[in-house]
């Protein structure tokens, strides 16, 4: 039972979220009021879209540090288009399309250029941010038309519309990753690139696709950003990439590739957002929020290492227990040796 839960890392994080809500709720009951929870959800949308997009990239054993910059650049394009009176569906297409294209660019550098992923995407981070600065001349683009920003304040059953839309999109991605053959190819690519190639998976194309998804979701986050804030400044999304990576890792997506779910990444994003917003309810100044993220991430890593170790030991014990019956004394001696080896 325990090992079953532990194997699904995202549930551990989910328990963490519930635990956090209860503890902070005991401290200050207004934190768990429906209106405040809706507010937390609303402020989590951008981060969970980014984290959901980041997950496929991490699952293919890469990393995307440019999503904050993609958010800004595609958001700037979208905001300018809206101010020039372009129809909303077309704007959505422009933002999502340009963002996905930027993701493809990252993917090509990593897959075909053989640039280490973190270097490639830190480089495009500088480039995309620079381009968005050049377009705007350093000014933020204000006054996004009302007919678009009204989506930001719309609510359905007490929860902001954008939360529903974001969750639906992330769920689509989650189903794609978990239930389709195409999605499983991402896991194979990250778990064992050479093996994946040998069984006929187009590894390079999977990497490019993963980056395209990450870019696309950064574009979706930009659409949410525009609706929620009504403006796009050049400082939008600064540091969001690291938070998104942290969220994915907290939700059980392993940076060594091949492990993790979209659901986990989303839960991780909720955890980080609710932890940040709980600070003010506990009377802790806001400048400690980065420290809080760091501590959460480190605790998640510690827990992860312990759980993984316990699982490994258990699996070995089980394997030896079943083979031990056949091998009798030789087997048990092996178990003792192996346990000793493992303990070191």
């Amino acid at each position: 039972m325990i090992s079953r839960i532990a194997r699904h890392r995202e549930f551990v994080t989910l328990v963490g979220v519930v635990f956090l809500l209860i503890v902070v709720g005991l401290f200050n009951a207004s934190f768990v009021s429906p209106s405040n929870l809706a507010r937390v959800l609303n402020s989590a949308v951008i981060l969970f879209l980014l984290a959901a997009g980041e997950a496929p990239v991490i699952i293919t054993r890469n990393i995307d540090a440019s999503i904050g910059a993609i958010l800004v650049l595609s958001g700037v394009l979208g905001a300018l288009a809206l101010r020039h009176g372009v129809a909303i569906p077309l704007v959505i297409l422009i933002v999502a399309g340009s963002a996905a294209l930027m993701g493809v660019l990252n993917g090509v550098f990593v897959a075909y250029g053989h640039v280490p992923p973190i270097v490639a995407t830190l480089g495009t981070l500088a480039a995309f941010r620079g381009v968005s600065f050049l377009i705007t001349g350093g000014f933020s683009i204000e006054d996004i038309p009302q007919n678009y920003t009204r989506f930001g304040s719309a609510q359905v059953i007490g929860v902001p519309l954008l939360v529903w839309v974001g969750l639906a999109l992330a769920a689509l991605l989650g189903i794609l990753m978990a239930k389709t053959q195409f999605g499983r190819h991402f896991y194979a690519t990250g778990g064992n690139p050479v093996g994946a190639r040998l069984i006929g998976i187009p590894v390079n194309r999977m990497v490019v696709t993963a980056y395209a998804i990450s870019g696309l979701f950064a574009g979706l986050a930009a659409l949410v950003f525009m609706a929620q804030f009504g403006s796009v400044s050049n400082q939008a999304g600064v540091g969001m990439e690291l938070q998104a990576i942290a969220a994915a890792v907290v939700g059980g997506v392993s940076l060594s590739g091949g492990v993790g779910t979209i659901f986990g990444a989303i839960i991780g994003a909720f955890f980080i957002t609710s932890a940040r917003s709980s600070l003010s309810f506990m009377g802790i100044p806001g400048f400690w929020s980065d420290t809080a993220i760091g501590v959460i991430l480190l605790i998640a890593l510690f827990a992860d290492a312990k759980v993984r170790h316990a699982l490994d030991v258990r699996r070995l014990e089980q394997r030896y227990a079943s083979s031990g019956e056949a091998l009798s004394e030789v087997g048990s001696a092996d178990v003792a040796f192996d346990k000793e080896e493992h303990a070191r």
Partner: protein
Amino acid sequence: MRKILPWLARWEVGLLVVLVLEIFIFGMVNPVFFDLQKLLLTMPDFIYLGIVALPLGMIMMTGGIDLSFGSVASLAAITTGVVFATSKSMVLGILVGLLVGVVCGLVNGVLIVTTKAQPMVLTLGTLFLFAGLALGVSGIGGVSAYEGIGNFPDWFNQIAYGTSLGLPNLLVAFVLASIVFYLLMSKTSFGRQMRLIGANAQTARYAGFSVSRLLITGYAVMGAMAALVGVLLSSYFGSARPDIGATLLLPVLTLVVIGGVSMFGGEGNMIGIVIATLVIGVLQQGVRYAGMNENEVSVVTGSVLVGVSILRWWSGRWSELLRNRRNRRREERATSALAGEPQAVGAGQAEPIAR
């Protein structure tokens, strides 16, 4: 000839060629660039990146990475500032700042060794932690994050601004650090063992030295150097801010990779990092002198960095192809010369390909 060719195919030599080309091209655009005196005096604008790139190169040679050094620099800088503001003693401030850096490095090292988590995730966590602590320290010290702490004694500002022997002090610091790290990595057993950890951690463990202790030492050195850069930057800007190191990560990391250090460890050397520092610094200065603003500079440098990194992999592949072809030809010559003596064919076989 046969001796020279592989030497020419080395990455560091390619970098050197790029450096010379850069100076030549930018010099054509703006003759100021040929003025050695001016070139030297503008070096402090970028040379501090190299000071922290050297230890990062060392860490990456062990197969690890430290993403948190920017935050460590910030934390050390603001601690120095706050201690100075409360105790009025600059020396004490600097000492505490450097000590904080060492402690941060030890925390990284110990956590990495004990949890066996990936260094990249772990230092991502401490990146947030130390950056948050830096903000926290400035909050406790009652400083606004934008203004920071200034009014340092004159001698402290002179550290980064002054010159010695006609060279800017920061350049002198970089040269000294380069020499120390070069000697450390190629002439001492410490350096060799660090490299072995990166090349093959299993072998390193069987070789019988304490991998954990070496790694922790390495990360502590990294923390100390990051703190040093934080203090130097405070001196350079004349104020200690809690976000002073936030922009270090991108340029320093790319610099190390362009310098030829592999992300997977075991490969690379300090000379490559030194040349790469100059290549990137001269590029940035050159683009600035050509009349571009900061945003255009970041677009150009970002693109060039990615471009050079692509070259790094493909050039290695091309030189390997070339070497294979040469070996194959030699083998053919040997077999045709030995025709009729089938037992001797093995002698002409291609030599193992060195990467």
